[in-house]
Every structure is written in structure tokens, then in C-alpha cells.
């Protein structure tokens, strides 16, 4: 009798859980763009992410052929002769503009769109900003996970990646960045080339997994989809992330230590500078509230000025391990200068002018001898953008450049050569007013 009642109770609870999950679980789609994006998407297209849609977007037919995802979008015109963009984002950009409607249709019907891309190449850097804009127009939350190229890949790719990142930041809700160069420090010297790329990919996938877990796994403390929206929507922020794992009795202390020494978080400095921090904890069934509390207390102490949202999830597969994913985002310094929609508009105009005559531009790009063409420098690109846009857009781009000033290295004057005074990730030798962002005028 009691057993039966218990049985019915359980089914009811399960039903309720199912209903709740159906309500809470947002429809998500993963887009892999460019060669790197498509192959990273392969790594994500697993059981763990069941329930999400997958779309591969590329200009290179060979790469798409190797992909196992259901929906593939091949951006192609005759002019490219199926050879890809040849590392020129202008072509990728023009192609994406041409097929804007297709991209938008693919984005339709999801609440959150993850764009996974390796910036620096032609397809990834060119298509992604357009795709993000298309996704944004459907009303979805757009989170981009991007890798920036290794320094050894050359200056040009760096510049392309940077430019694309700037554009992406102004359209996507959040951009989570993984500079490959920093991952070097996480590996030992003898790591092979293939392994290096694999590890970098895995790192990015880890970040995706952290956010995914946050949204879908039954939580001790659940982060609702709207929390995430409220945190990232229209922030146009650049974020860094780190995932660490530990097991054993001291695991809560260990994860915090690992986090604070993490290369990707600049040894904890990124936390101190961030203004929004998202923490996702995942542990086995033995995850205790006290552990969650301990980790959170330590983390929030290091980012006093930030808005912190956290979620803790139980995943049986974790067993006795504890994994913490931290995404720290710093508000885009340009965002507050620009009138709402200022930068996207300027981009749109530039895009529009490009899309008006995509054929011509493409033709010029394809027929012109690529090698003899001097590589565009950053400034030249901005000039091109500004020329296409109206006066207002020019103003915006001028401000854009000005707002980058704080990124310049601050001279520490007389303490330049002495041992730096680091206190909880802050360099105390840098004037206080600069670290606190107090304006003098």
C-alpha cells in the first residue's frame, strides 16, 4: 500500500520535473562557423548536449563533408570555385550578407544561440559577425565562443581576428574569448601540434559545457535562463573563462586555488577587474552546500565590484569530482559611449553598402592578385568602414579608437623595476584612481 503510494508519488514528481524542465529548458542551437568552428562543433555534438540543434556553416565544402551534424549551410558562389575564402574575411563577409536570409532562417525558433568559431581565418572572421546579427534579429540571446589565433600564425590573422572580435562584440550579447597564445602556458613544452590544437579546442568546449550545464542540469541552485539573459543581454562584453576540476576532501579549497592561479584569468586579475561574473559549479551527488558556500565566498571576495550569479548542479557522472567554470566579463568600454544601437547601426550601414554590390567587391577581391595586394592594416580597415558609413558612424569609430586607450600599458613610474605589490590579484603599484576608474576632468 505504502509502496504503491510512494510509487505514484514518484511518478508525479517525475512528471512535475519533466514539466518543469520543458518549461525551463530553453531551445538552444549551436553554430560552428569556419573550419575551426565546424571541427569544434564535432566535439560538442555529443549526447551531453542532446536536445540542442546543431548547424555547421562554412565556405569550404570539404570541411562540411566531414561533419556529422544534421544541418549544414554551405555558403558558395561561383566566384569562389569551391575553394573557400582564401583567408580573406571580406569575402566571407560578403557571402554571408548575400545569404543573410538563409542564416536567419536557420536561427529561427531558438532562445539561445551559441556561435563557436576560431577567429583569424576568412570564413570564421567574416561570417560570424553577420551570423550573430542574423541571430540577434530573430530575438535570440547570442553567445559567441571564440578562439583568437596563436601569435605564430602571423600578424594579419591577428588583425583580422581583432577586427572581427570588435564587430562581434557590438552585435552579440556576450563574447567569450580564448586567446590560444595563453593556452601555451597550460601545456608543457613537448606537446605536439595536433595535441595543442586539440587541447585548445577542448578548453573552449569546456567553457561551452559549463554554460550548458548551468542552463540544463538539475541544480541545487539553478540559474534560470532569464538570469543569464539579464546578465549578458546587450552588454556586448568581452569575457574570459576558466574551468578547473579537483577531487578529494580539500577539493573546494583546491578549485579556488587553481582558479586564482589560472593563466586564462591572468592569475586572478581578470576577476578583480570584471563587473559580472558567472560561476557554475558541478559535482557528484556528494556535493554539499558548505562546499558551494566556501567556493562562492572565496570567489566573490576576489570580485567585490562584480555582479555574481552562480549555479550549482549535480551530475552523477562527476562522481567525487568538483568542477567550477567561471566566466568573468568586463563591460565593453565603448558601450557606454555609444548611443544605443550606435555601433551596430554603423556596421549595418557598412554591411549594407557591402551587400549592395557584393558581386563587384567579390569579383575585385577574387580577380585581383591576392599576393600583390598589400595586407590591410587595422587603421586602413577602419578608414574603409568609415568611408562607407555616414558622419555619425565615423564619429562612433573615432570614439572606438579612443576608448581603447586604457588597454595601453600603464607605466609604474619609480616602481617599474621593483618587485610588484600584488594584493588579491590587483597590482597596487598602479595608481588607485586608475584601477578604480575614477575620471579626472
Amino acid at each position, binding site marked *: 500500500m505504502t509502496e504503491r503510494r510512494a510509487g505514484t508519488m514518484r511518478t508525479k514528481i517525475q512528471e512535475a520535473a519533466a514539466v518543469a524542465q520543458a518549461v525551463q529548458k530553453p531551445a538552444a542551437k549551436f553554430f560552428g562557423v569556419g573550419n575551426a568552428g565546424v571541427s569544434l562543433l564535432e566535439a560538442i555534438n555529443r549526447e551531453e548536449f542532446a536536445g540542442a540543434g546543431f548547424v555547421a556553416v562554412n565556405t569550404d565544402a570539404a570541411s562540411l563533408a566531414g561533419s556529422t551534424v544534421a544541418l549544414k549551410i554551405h555558403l558558395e558562389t561561383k566566384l569562389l570555385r569551391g575553394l573557400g575564402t582564401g583567408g580573406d574575411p571580406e569575402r566571407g563577409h560578403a557571402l554571408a550578407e548575400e545569404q543573410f536570409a538563409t542564416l536567419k532562417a536557420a536561427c529561427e525558433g531558438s532562445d539561445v544561440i551559441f556561435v563557436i568559431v576560431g577567429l583569424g581565418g576568412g570564413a570564421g572572421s567574416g561570417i560570424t559577425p553577420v551570423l550573430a546579427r542574423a541571430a540577434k534579429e530573430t530575438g535570440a540571446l547570442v553567445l559567441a565562443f571564440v578562439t583568437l589565433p596563436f601569435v605564430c600564425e602571423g600578424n594579419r590573422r591577428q588583425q583580422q581576428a581583432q577586427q572581427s572580435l570588435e564587430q562581434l562584440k557590438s552585435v552579440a550579447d556576450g563574447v567569450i574569448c580564448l586567446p590560444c597564445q595563453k593556452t601555451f602556458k597550460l601545456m608543457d613544452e613537448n606537446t605536439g601540434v595536433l595535441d595543442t590544437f586539440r587541447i585548445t579546442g577542448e578548453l573552449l568546449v569546456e567553457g561551452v559545457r559549463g554554460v550548458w550545464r548551468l542552463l540544463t542540469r538539475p541544480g541545487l541552485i539553478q540559474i534560470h535562463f532569464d538570469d543569464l539573459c539579464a546578465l549578458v543581454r546587450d552588454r556586448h562584453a568581452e569575457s574570459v573563462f576558466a574551468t578547473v576540476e579537483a577531487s578529494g576532501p580539500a577539493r573546494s579549497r583546491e578549485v579556488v586555488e587553481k582558479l586564482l592561479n589560472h593563466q586564462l584569468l591572468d592569475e586572478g586579475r581578470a576577476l578583480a577587474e570584471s563587473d559580472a561574473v558567472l560561476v557554475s559549479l558541478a559535482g557528484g551527488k556528494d556535493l554539499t552546500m558548505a562546499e558551494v558556500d566556501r567556493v562562492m565566498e572565496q570567489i566573490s571576495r576576489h570580485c567585490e565590484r562584480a555582479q555574481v550569479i552562480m549555479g550549482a548542479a549535480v551530475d552523477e557522472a562527476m562522481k567525487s569530482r568538483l568542477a567550477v567554470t567561471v566566466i568573468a566579463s568586463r563591460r565593453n568600454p565603448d558601450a557606454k559611449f555609444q548611443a544605443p544601437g550606435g555601433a551596430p547601426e554603423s556596421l549595418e550601414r557598412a554591411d549594407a553598402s557591402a551587400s549592395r554590390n557584393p558581386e563587384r567587391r567579390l569579383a575585385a577581391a577574387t580577380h585581383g592578385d591576392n599576393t600583390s595586394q598589400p595586407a590591410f592594416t587595422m587603421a586602413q580597415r577602419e578608414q574603409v568602414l568609415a568611408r562607407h558609413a555616414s558622419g555619425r558612424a565615423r564619429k562612433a569609430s573615432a570614439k572606438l579608437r579612443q576608448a581603447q586607450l586604457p588597454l595601453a600599458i600603464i607605466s609604474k613610474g619609480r*616602481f617599474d623595476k621593483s618587485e610588484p605589490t600584488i594584493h588579491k590579484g590587483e597590482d597596487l603599484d598602479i*595608481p*588607485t*584612481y586608475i584601477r578604480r576608474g*575614477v575620471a579626472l576632468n
Partner: protein
Amino acid sequence: MFDDPSIIVGLEIGTSKVCAVIGELGADGALNIIGLGQARSRGVRKGEVADTTQAEEDVRNAIVEAEQMADVEIRNVYLGVTGGHIRGFNNRGVHPVVSADREISGDDVQDVIKNAKAINLPAENSVVHAVRQHFFVDGQDGVTNPVGMLGSRLEVDMHVVHGNRNRLQNAIRLVKGLQLEVDEIVFNGLASSLALLTSEQKELGALVIDIGGGTTNYAVYAGGVIRHTGVLAVGGDHVSNDLAYGLKVPLSRAEKLKLEHGSALLDEKIKGQTITITNELGLPLKTVNVEHLQRIMSLRLEEIFQLVAQDLEQAGLTDYLRAGAFLCGGGARVPQVAKLAEQVLQMPVSLGQTNSVSGLKSALDQPEFVTAIGLVKFGSLKTRKREGKTSLARGLKGVFGKFLQRP
């Protein structure tokens, strides 16, 4: 006159100045300051020697000046040390009382202190001070002398100050290179608190913050014993550097502006006020906004106090400081600094006054000399203790022994 045990010298090799203070211990135990020498320091950054040659010269100048003023020859000094590598923490030692009648003997006390001193320090660190706090007998708190008491378990709390051995040795070697003996090294924060606090204040609970040129040292007393010490490698130099950076003036000019127009809190009157900087010919070079100057300065000083307050909170000492906080060091000269500290620390703050020392009025009133005077005071306490221990016979032996040792 040589090796007169009543002459005690404190030497502080600071970031902004080197300072030697000579004290004379009277027969009645009263300490009298009879000499003071100082020199601008050029070879020190953040409290630690960065240029040995220059620092050596500065130390020599300060010592010579003090010697001339007091008309004594300096052989031994108590040397003040500081730097970002110095840490303080509390450690507890435990010792079971094994004697049949459970009476605690002097040996038990020695043993428990030895246990408390056995601490796991990083291999490159060494202990600067190990100061006894209170004894516990069977968990009973607040015992100051347990000898003769009955109990089965004796514990003692120690406050241990330690630092990087090589970096401590740098200062010691420098002094030894000048043919001076170092009696003992003393943490500057401890020395300052010795000079400023009365035993009543130590009992009530007090915080001493010494804002020096390169470092800020602080020490907390509560219940009559030292409870906490700390160093922040941030000081007046940082204020000058911030000003030089923020106002875009040379460092020497920033230093001057800081002294002439600085304030820890923003003055209402100065809004929009500017200062014109002129070159040596009297031609105007640049105008500086006083409001900016004071804001940069105020933010830096505020941060220093905030960091100290955070540290104290972490140590759980904020509620024990009933006598309030006392400021010293060059930073205490900044106008309104006590008011700012009051706002941040949420407790009464006043500028420290050296007490229980007499002598040169000019030295006693200056906040910069507090540490050096504290070093002398530390020396006097040590000497007194030593004298108390020596019986007549041992004393004589000691005198002859010393006599024979000297070539």
C-alpha cells in the same frame, strides 16, 4: 664609555630617510633620548635595500650625525626591518604536564614555548620575532605566569613574525659592513607600537598604523599582548608616484606638491582651484588642478586604510580595538589623515604621541621618528631583562669575559 650597556641605538633604514636614534638608559630604568641623526635615503625601495652603495653612505651619514649630537661612539644597533615579504601569524604550542603532582614547572614552560616556536616556515624564511601571548592551563584562558599552577595540559599562543632570510640579511650585512654590530633585528611595526602605546592602551586594544615612505606597517595589541602584525608594501612613495602619473609632472615636483597642497580628504574650498608650476627662472610651466591632486591622494590613502581594515576583519580583531587607532610615520603628517582613517576604520583615530621616553623634544614630537625611538625602546626592554637575570657573579664574569674576548 665604550660598550656602555646604558647606551642603546635604534637604526631605521627607511625608504625616504635613514634615521639613527641614541637613547640612554638611566639607573632608574628611565629612557632618555640624547642623540638623533638622519639622512635622506636613496638606496631603498619599498622598505628594502635596492642599492647597497648608496644606502651604506646614507647610513654612515646618519650614524655620524647621531654620534656627534650625543657625543658617544656607536658600536651596536637595534636594526629595524620591514618589507612586503614580512608576515605575522599566531601559533599555538601544546605540552602535557607529566610530573606526578601536576604542578607546572619552569621546564614545562620552556618546553611549551619551544613547541610553539616549532613552526612550518618556508625553507627560505626565518623568524624575526616570536612573542609570547597568553598561556592556557587545561583550556583556561588568560594565564600570564603558569609556574606553580596545577594542570595537566599547558598551551601557549605565540605571535610569530617571519620574513625572507636573504632579504633580511641584506640590511644586516649592510650595517655590519660599516663595522657596527646588530644586537637584534626588530620589525618596524612592532617598534612603532612600542613607542606609541601605553600599557593601558595595549590592554584595551589598539591599532598602530605606520605609514612610511615605501611601506605601511601595522600592529594590533589587545589584552596586553600583540595579536597581529602586517606589512603593506604601499606608502608615501606610491602617493607621489600616483601624483606624478596623474598630474603629469616629474616625481620630484609631485613630491613637493604632495607636501605643500596634499590632503587626505577633499577640501570643499579647493574646487576649481589651480596651482601654477614655475621653473627655476619663475616662468610658468604648467597648471595643476588642486582638486585632482587631492582626489588622487585621497583615493590612495583611503585604499591603504581599506586594505588594513580588511586584513583586521579577516583576523577577527575589529571588535577588540577599544582604544582606537594611532597613526605615525610620514603619512601621519598629511592633513586630515586621521579623519579619513576614522571614516574607513570606523573607530577613533588619533596621531600617535611617543610616551614613556624623555629627551630631545624635537625628536619626540615628529611622527617620522616614532619607529626609531621604538627601536631604542625595544633595546631598553631587552637590556633591562638581561640585567634582571644577571647576578653579581655572572655580571662580573660577563665583564671580564667581554674584556678578554676583545683583542
